[in-house]
Each structure stands twice: as C-alpha cells, then as structure tokens.
C-alpha cells in the first residue's frame, strides 16, 4: 500500500503548535512502522521555511525522493476562482502520486496562509483519510466563527471533510463528535489517539535548578499549575480562579496558582481582573507567559498539583504531559479528558467552582490520595504511545484501501492533465484574470514532474556572455558538447544561464554550436523536483545573485552540483587582482551551503576543498556536500584548434633546433614560475651552458617587471624566445622542435600542458606539487624549491640524465578523451548509475 501523508499540518502556522507536533510525531511513527507499506510525504512549496526541517526529520526514515513537493497558485488575497483552482491543483497533484490512500494531517488549519485542502473536488483514484482533532468551532459558532470570511472558510471545509473516506480521530470523544455532527457512519471514524514525546518523564530537580526556576518564573510557594496551551473561553479560567479563591486560607498561604501559557497583554489583564474580583492577593497568582518545553517539564515536576478545568478538548495533551512527568493531575469530566485521565476519582465538574475547590483540597491535603493519583497516572500514560497511534492508523488505512498482505501495489497509470484542465475550466466561482491563469499554469507545470522528462540543467552563465576560448571556457565548451551529444540515460541535457534574476534556457547559444533546435527563444527555465543542476562554468561574479535562486531550486528538490576548478584564489589571493578573491570566497561559501556534489577537476583540488570545508563548515540541515573528482579531457583536436603561422617562423624553428630547447607553455602570470625559470637560465647561460628557453604564452596580470626583463633581454631571439599569442598550428611546430617541457607553476587545478607534452612525447620537468604528481606520476622529472639554485641543480641533473638517455619519458602518460572525462563527471554526480 502506498500512503501519501499531506504534511501541511507540520508546515503552516500550526507547525509550532499542537497540530504541528502531532503531525510530525505521527508521520514519523507511521514511517517507522510502515513495514511493507510505502510512505510518501507531500509538502506545499508555498510554505517553504519548513521544507529543510522536514527533509531532515525524515532523512533516515524514508528515501528522500518520496518527499514530493507541490506548488499551488497563491496571492495576497486570493479570489474565489484562485482558491478553487488551488484546491483542484493540489488534488490533481496528489492523484499523480498514485497513492492508495492520502492521509491529510490538518484539514481546517491554514486560514490566511497558502495551505490548501479539499476532498473530492476532482475525480481521483485514491481514498482519503483525514485526522480529526476536534469540531470546536462547529459546535460553538457564535464564539469561534464570529467573522463572515472565516466562517465561510470553515463551513466550506466542513462540506469538504464530509467527502472524506475515513476520519482518524485523536480521541474517543472527537470520534463521537465526528459521528454526531458530520453525519458520517461510525465505522468510517477510527480513534487513533495521541501521545507525547519521550522527553516528558519524571524529573528530579536539584536544589539549584529548583531555585533558578523559581527565581526565573517568580514562583515563591508550591505551585498549583494550569498549563492550558492556549487562551479562550473553553479553557475555563474564571471557574478555576474562583475555585482557587474558595480554598482554605492555610492552603492558599502555602501555594500559588501558576498559569503557564502564552498570553497577550489584554488576556493577561483579563486574568488579573478576575483574580482581583475573587479576592486573590497579587502574589497568589503567577502568570509565566510562554515557557519552552524543557522549562515546562521542570515546572510539571515542581508542581504540587496539576489542574485542567477545560470544558472542551480534542485530546488534552498537557494532561498526559503532566502525568508522564509524575505530577498529580485532576481535570474536567468533559469531552476527551476522562479518557485521557482514566481515573474517575480525579475528575470534577468544570462548571462548579465548589467541586473544583473540593477536589483541589482533597489532593493538597490527602497525601495518600495524591500518591494514588500519581501511581495510577504512571500506569495510565503507558497506554499512549506514538507507536500504537501509528499502528492503529495503519490498520485503519489498510482497511480503507482493502489492503491485504498478498495484494501488491497496483500501479495506476499517471492521470492525465486533461481532467485537471477540464476541472479548472468548469470553476463557476468568478472569472480568472490573465495573471491568475499564468500563475495556475506555472504551478501545474511545476507539479507535473511525473509527466516530464527529467532535465540535466547545465549552467553555462559565463560562457554564454563571453567565450574567450581559453582555460575554463574551453573545458566548459568541451564538456557541454559531450553532454549534449551523449546525455546520461533518462535525462535531457539543457544548457541554461542566469539572466536578471532567473535562469533561462540557452537555446540561442546552443543553436550556435550544435545546430538548430526547435526552440530559439531563451524562455525561463522549467525546473521540477528531481531535475539535476550542474554548474559547468565558474560563475563567481554571479554568486551573490544566483544564491537565492539556487537555494529555491534546492528547496524544490533540484539536485545541485558544481565543478570546482581550483582553490588558488583562496590559497594565494596575491596572484590575482584584488577584487577576485572576495568574489571567489562568496561563490565558494555559496556552493558549500547549496551543493549536493562538488566535483573537482583533480584529486588534489578535492583534498584541498575537503580541508577548506573542515575549516568553513557550512551551516546546513542536510548532509554536507559530497566532494569528488574527475579528470579533464585532452583530445585538443576536438576543441577547435586555431591556425596561422608568423612570418619569421622559419628563423625561429632554426633557432630552436640548434640547441636543447626547454619549453614553457601558459599565460604569463605570477603563479606560473616564469621569473624563477628565467633567472635559472640566466645563470646557466653565464656558466656557458648552451641551451634555449622558449616561453609560449600571452601576457597576463601583475607581471610588468618580468615582461620588461623578457622584452629587453640580451639573449632575446638568440637563446631566449618569447612567442606571444601564437596559433595552435604554430604551437604544434614548437612542440616538435623542443626537447623538454618545464612545468614550473606553483599552483594548478589540473595541468593540461603536461598532457599536451606527453602527446608530443616530450619529456617533462615539473614542480613537485600534488596535482602534477597526480597527472604525470612517474612520467616526469620533479624539482622543488623556489630559488634559482634549486631549479639550476635540477636542470643540470636532468641534462646529465638526458645525455645518457635516462630521463623519464612521458610517452605512456595516461590521459582521457573528453568523452571519458564527461563519463567520469557523470559518475561523480550519479554514483550508482
């Protein structure tokens, strides 16, 4: 049997109150006891604050993809058309989950919020059960339904709830209420009861703790406690205060009436006036205001007596809490309270102050009776547990769906959207505006995830705007082409980019590189639960803006993945112009908070990222990001090589071939180690070592000094060659004419020049940094140290080995194609597949 629990009860305002706690505890218990049943949750996207909490609360109980999110159209003040539409859209969504039964946890709650409930607004194939807390407003309309808008809302809900296939009442008394006032046959209403958390248990207060509590709450004598959990007429404060005033003077001198409840100022005044009227001295009644759970538990333990004079309850959780904490409890003999207290001796008539006073006197004066009450309570509370609530609820739902152990879950076809659209067209409550139609369409599109192919959203925000065809952009382009041509099974690859607050499909851009598709408008992106987002680009300049959008996508169930190229901007911000490192840090902190997978381009970067995460632990409720790595491709022929040769190419080639030539490839920027290499060669030359140094690379940033040295060097064009901005075709020739590659960079994310050199069978001298070890392993000759001595020694040694033909060769260095690279990337994101 597939059970879908509509969790709105734990999402709306009520999530901090009784209904929210009840919903969460019951749903967790059902999930724990589900056995062979499937438990799914449905969450309202318009109440997003609760979503991370709920995901965390169920992460160890059910697979996370069974937590489904639905959107409903909403407005500040929704028109009736919009409200009806929202009801239909929610029912249609629940139907699409192909459940046997839907369990609605909170039916009446959520007035003025985006919570939506209805039953039978649409023909559906599941049964619906609803938890019935109470029908207090229905029974006391003049008091609880004074306002037309609210009463319309409530009666509409009453009409809907009559369509329920079953009600799960939280007590016998509300079970009877349901049968009497909703006209439903008794066998359709089950009592599943209620329970409290394990934190409510007898608590031995030490002297210090006791004094601290008394001081905090301004309690001076032994408390007679009432913790009603709310403030309204039925809580019966007047009778209680009057009853307290009827107690003997001696008893009143030893005790205080303590009322623990959240109180607004007028309510506080009302109670003070009552106390005055019945002749209570100011220090005889203490109003604590709202107290947190742990304080409440201490207060229960401190109390001499717990009185609960309420006239009407659905269940009466505070009674059970007090009993579980070992307090002597007496209470009203109305509604659900007798069944919770389970002891006729502890009951009184709540309308008679005299009766209340007598019962209080009995408990406060007769220690044997008080002990009996407490003993009996310890026994009584055993009857209530979430496990048994969940068991009964499961039995009820099994009955409802005619489930038997042999009946498998028959998969129904996904219902067509047409039923929903027809339903919407037939709404007679007013006419929709254009805006409302758009909002409705947007919600339906989001909810229809089961109708749609899952998307792999490839974020290429930077390259869409500028493609300089170098570095990261080359990687983005190559991976993009691979993923578009061979998307992972079951996913459609869609390039997207961030634009003015939203993500759009990069149709224009994509058409430019892989030819025409049907769409040429860059429409806003559709994202649905279960879609996969993968940021190919490094969009650090956008992080500030994308964060909230991505955060919302994550809330809605989109998995977020990011490629991390390196952490150099964190490690060595001095290698770049100043503003970059702030941008990068913002980006890094954003992805560490949001990412499901952070995939680094080498294991070395992955290790650095793990270190960084240890120091900058992101605050998040779900698991921290999974850090993994893949390697980049190196089949450069597939990434659009440039052509063209300079006029003096012949001269240069002759110069290179004349001697042993050491080659450096890469932009001239501080981290690449050009300065050290140049100084080293100056020394070699002065010592008569006749070798060439060839530097291929554009001028970067913060290298003015070095550039001047290069430009005015006496060896320039003799034994020192600087080839700036040459084509790939030219570079091929240079590789062919060179003897050895020097990779002197102090920091890299990967190390493509090493692979390029290996492809040209060129031996390599590399700085001993972990990423070069990872890429080249034993296929390179390593050096370390930042001084010219260090490198000079290394080159001399290498030359000796070279003469003997014993330098490490790079011929067998392993490297990947872009296809293999993309495969590795996908494996990191989908570990199972």
């Amino acid at each position, binding site marked *: 049997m597939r059970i879908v629990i509509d969790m709105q009860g734990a999402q709306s305002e009520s999530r901090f109150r009784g209904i929210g706690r009840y919903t969460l505890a019951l749903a967790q218990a059902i999930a724990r006891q589900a056995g062979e049943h499937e438990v799914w949750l449905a969450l309202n*996207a*318009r109440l*997003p*604050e609760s979503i991370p909490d709920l995901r965390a609360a169920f992460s160890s109980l059910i697979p996370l993809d069974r937590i489904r999110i639905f*959107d409903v159209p*909403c407005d500040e003040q929704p028109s009736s058309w919009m409200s009806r539409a929202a009801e239909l859209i929610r029912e249609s969504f629940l139907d699409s989950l192909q459940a046997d039964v839907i369990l609605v946890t909170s039916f009446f709650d959520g007035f003025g919020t985006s919570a939506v409930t209805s039953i039978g607004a649409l023909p559906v194939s599941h049964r619906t059960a609803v938890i019935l807390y109470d029908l207090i407003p229905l029974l006391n309309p003049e008091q609880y339904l004074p306002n037309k808008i609210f009463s319309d809302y409530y009666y509409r809900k009453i009409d809907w709830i009559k369509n329920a296939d079953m009600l799960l009442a939280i007590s016998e008394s509300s079970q009877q209420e349901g049968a009497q006032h909703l006209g439903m046959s008794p066998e359709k209403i089950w009592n599943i009861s209620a329970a409290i958390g394990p934190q409510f248990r007898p608590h031995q207060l030490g002297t210090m703790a006791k004094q601290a509590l008394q001081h905090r709450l301004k309690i001076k004598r032994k408390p007679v406690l009432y913790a009603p959990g709310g403030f309204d007429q039925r809580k019966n404060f007047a009778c209680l205060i009057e009853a307290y005033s009827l107690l003997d003077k001696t008893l009143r001198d030893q005790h205080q009436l303590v009322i623990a409840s959240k109180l607004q100022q007028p309510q506080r005044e009302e109670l003070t006036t009552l106390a005055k009227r019945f002749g209570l001295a100011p220090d005889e009644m203490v109003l604590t205001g709202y107290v947190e759970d742990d304080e409440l538990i201490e207060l229960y333990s401190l109390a001499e007596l717990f009185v609960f004079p309420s006239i009407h309850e659905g269940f009466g959780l505070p009674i059970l809490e007090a009993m579980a904490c070992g307090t002597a409890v007496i209470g009203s003999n109305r509604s659900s309270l007798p069944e919770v207290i389970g002891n006729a001796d502890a009951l009184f008539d709540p309308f008679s102050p005299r009766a209340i006073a007598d019962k209080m006197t009995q408990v406060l004066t007769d220690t044997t009776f008080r002990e009996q009450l407490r003993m009996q309570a310890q026994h009584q509370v055993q009857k209530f547990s979430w496990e048994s609530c969940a068991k009964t609820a499961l039995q009820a739902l099994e009955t409802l769906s005619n489930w038997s152990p042999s009946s498998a879950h028959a998969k129904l076809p996904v219902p067509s*959207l*047409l039923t929903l*659209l*027809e339903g*919407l*067209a*037939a709404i007679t409550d007013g006419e*929709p505006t*254009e*805006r409302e*139609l*758009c*909002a*409705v*369409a*947007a919600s*339906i*599109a*989001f909810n*229809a995830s089961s109708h*749609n192919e899952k998307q792999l959203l490839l974020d290429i925000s930077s390259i869409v*705007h*500028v*493609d*300089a065809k170098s570095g990261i952009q080359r990687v983005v382009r190559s991976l993009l082409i691979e993923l578009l041509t061979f998307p992972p099974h079951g996913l459609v690859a869609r390039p997207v980019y961030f634009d003015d*607050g*939203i993500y759009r*499909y990069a149709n*224009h851009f994509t*058409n*430019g590189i892989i030819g*025409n598709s049907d*769409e*040429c408008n860059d*429409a*806003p*992106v*559709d994202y649905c639960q279960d879609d996969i987002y993968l940021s190919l680009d490094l969009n650090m300049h956008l992080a500030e803006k994308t*964060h*909230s*959008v991505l*955060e*919302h996508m994550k*809330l809605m169930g989109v998995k977020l993945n990011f490629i991390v190229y390196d952490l150099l901007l964190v490690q060595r911000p001095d290698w770049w112009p100043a503003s970059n490192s702030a941008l990068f840090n913002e980006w890094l902190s954003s992805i560490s908070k949001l990412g499901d997978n952070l995939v680094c381009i080498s294991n070395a970067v992955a290790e650095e990222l793990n270190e960084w995460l240890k120091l900058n632990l992101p605050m998040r409720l779900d698991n921290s990001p999974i850090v993994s790595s893949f390697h980049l491709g190196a089949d450069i022929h597939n990434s659009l090589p440039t052509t063209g040769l300079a006029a003096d190419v012949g001269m240069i080639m002759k110069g290179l071939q004349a001697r042993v030539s050491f080659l450096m490839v890469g932009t001239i920027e501080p981290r690449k180690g050009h300065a050290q290499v140049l100084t080293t060669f100056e020394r070699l030359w002065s010592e008569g070592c006749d070798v060439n140094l060839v530097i291929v690379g554009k*001028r970067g*940033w*913060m290298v*003015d000094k070095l550039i001047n040295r290069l430009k005015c060097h006496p060896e320039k064009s003799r034994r020192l060659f600087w080839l700036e901005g040459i084509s790939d075709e030219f570079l091929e020739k240079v590789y062919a004419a060179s003897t050895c590659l020097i990779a002197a960079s102090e920091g890299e994310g990967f190390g493509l020049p090493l692979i390029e050199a290996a492809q040209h069978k060129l031996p390599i001298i590399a700085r001993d940094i972990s990423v070069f070890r990872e890429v080249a392993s034993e296929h390179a000759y390593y050096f370390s140290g930042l001084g010219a001595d260090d490198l000079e020694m290394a080159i001399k040694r290498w030359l000796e080995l070279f003469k003997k033909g014993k330098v490490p060769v790079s011929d067998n260095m392993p490297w990947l194609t872009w296809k293999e690279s993309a495969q590795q990337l996908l494996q990191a994101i989908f570990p199972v597949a």
Partner: protein
Amino acid sequence: MKDDFYRSFEDRHRGSRDVINERLNVYLPFVDSLSKYYPNEPVLDLGCGRGEWLELMLEKCFAPFGVDLDDGMLDECRERGLPAHKGDAIAFLKGLPNESQVVVSAFHVVEHITFEQLQSVVSESLRVLKPGGLLIMETPNPENISVGTRSFYLDPTHQRPIPDLLLSFVAEYYGFARVKTLRLQENKSLKKSNSLSLVDVLTGVSPDYAVIAQKAASDDVMHMTSQPFEKDYGVTLNELAATYDLQISKKIEQAESVAQAANAQLYAVLASRSWQITKPLRWCGLQARRLRDEGFVSRAKALVKKIGRPVVKRAMEFVNARPVLRKNIIELINRLGLYERIRRRYWILQGKTHKVSPLVIGRSFVNEFSDLSPRARQIYADLKIEIKKYKENC
C-alpha cells in the same frame, strides 16, 4: 471590371508570357510521369488567363482545355488558337464526368474565390480526376511578410490570403492521397547568402506557393510518380530568420572578443608604470575640474567625508571589539533619541542593506505570459482551450 484591366494588371504584376512560361517549368516533372500513363488525355486549367499552361500541356501531348471569366485574357488564347471557354470554373467542373481529367490546375485562382467555392473546387476535382491525377493550385504565399501584408492586397479582386497549411489541409481533408507544398519564385541566391539583411527576412521568403495533390491510384502508379514529391522546394520564413539570427550572433561574438582584447589592453595600460607615475597629475586635474563643476562647498564636504569615513570605521571596529563599551554607547544613543538614524548609517557603512528573503520572493514573480516557462506556456494554452470549450458547451 473593364475588359482589359486584368490583362494589363497581369502583364504588370504576374509577369510577361515568357517569364510565366519559365515559372511553370517547376511542375513539369510532376506531369511528365503521368503523360506515359495517359497520353492525349484531357487536362483542365481553371482561370487559364493568357493560356501559358495550355500551351505547355499541348507540348506535353495532353488535350488541354481552359476556362476563364475574363474576355481580355481569353482573347489572347484565341489569338494563339488555344482551346478555352468563357464561363464559371466551378460550374464547368461540375459538368464534367467522373475520372475524366489527368490534371486540374488553378494558377492564382483560389485567392479570388470564397472558402466554400474552394472546397467545391477541391472536392469536384477529386471526382473528375483519373486515378493518380493531379490537382495543382498556385497562390501567393502569405508567409512572405511583404506578400502577406501588402502585395497580396494590391489586387482588388483578391479575397483573403490562404496559408499553405490551410490549402494543403483542404486537399488532404477531401481525400487526396498525396499532398505536396512547393514554395516558389524565391531569389535562389538567398539560400546560400552569408549576409542576410532584415529586408531579406521580411521579403525573401518564396512569394508564391503551390499545393499539388494527387488522387489515389495503384501502388505501381503511385510509385512511378513519387520522385518529384520527395524533394523540398523554396525558402521558409523560419529558415531565413534562423540564418539571420545566427549571423547576427556571430557578429556579436566577434565584437565581444574584440572588446575583450581591448579590455585586456586597457588593463595593461592601467597597470603600466607610466600610468602609475602620472597618477598624481591626473588626480590634480580631476580635482580642479570637479571644483569648477561642483563648487567649493560640495568639494569640501566630500573631503570631510573622505577623511572622516575611515576614522569612523576605525572607531566602529574599536567599539565593536568591546561589547560592554558598545552596549553603553548604544544606550547613550538611545537616550539621545538618535538610535534609528545612527543605526541606518551604521548598516550603510558596514555595507549591509536589507535584502528581501528569497523565500518571500519564491516563485511569485509569475505575472504574465512572458514569465512562463515553455511547459507552463503549453499548459496555459491548453487551459485556455478548455475554458473556451467549456463556455461554448454552456
């Protein structure tokens, strides 16, 4: 209409006889294969005009016959000895026996008649055609924006433009076995052009099109006559627009890479030594200019701010590091009634402005159609249809 008007109009706008003869050549491959099966059998041309098609059909060994309402046009047919008859095309069609014609053609006729008449032409043609016979209907192509918005209406006897999808649908609907749309008369060089202009997009789509519909016949005949049906003819609006877009985005890409290179150069200049050395000089110049433009008072204020801000910031850091002091100062400020004002200043200095929580924004930005994603747009359209249907049923 005056007798000669149409003939003059045709001469001016449809083209001279020779030009028209050439334009008709595109149909010959379709007709040729049929002449083997039906030599010397009748073909009918509705609205035969000056008789160019009749002439061509004679050459192809068919027995052509033309019908037209315009005497001026028919005169020319008679001058050339072509068999033509004055009369209403539909009435004439209706009088013909079943399966009597090999080809029924209607060049630039359907835009002159009502939709009901068009339906009759198509259904009657199907009746009178022999198995495998062809119905040819040529008409202006409203997909060409210049044709659809302007030149179509130059002819006062035109009723309404007929989109190709409608015309081909009518033929399919009445039961023709094979229906082909040919876009015609476009400038052939456009297809390969590397420099499309916007004018090309607006005017370059094939200005005419024809629907050729073939009546069902034995597999053998259908197979033998299938070849010309398999080719593509002409240029669509989507093709031109997409090519145009691609060219523009390439140009933009080039411009961007130039801009980027310029940016890099600018960066190099800014970082260069000479630029650094001349910095004080430039600063003095700037200050002089601003003093002239903004006046003494405003510059003096700016100076105070420039000096004051770091001092205040330093002081803030000092205070922030000492919680007790901070608390006392806040209390003092509170008592002075300056708290709100100073707090705002403080946040501005700290660079913190209040941002709306993303959770509040959520997805509520959907206000109009253009905010919708493709799936939502589809659903929106479907929903509108359902609402319309529902209203009609009520």
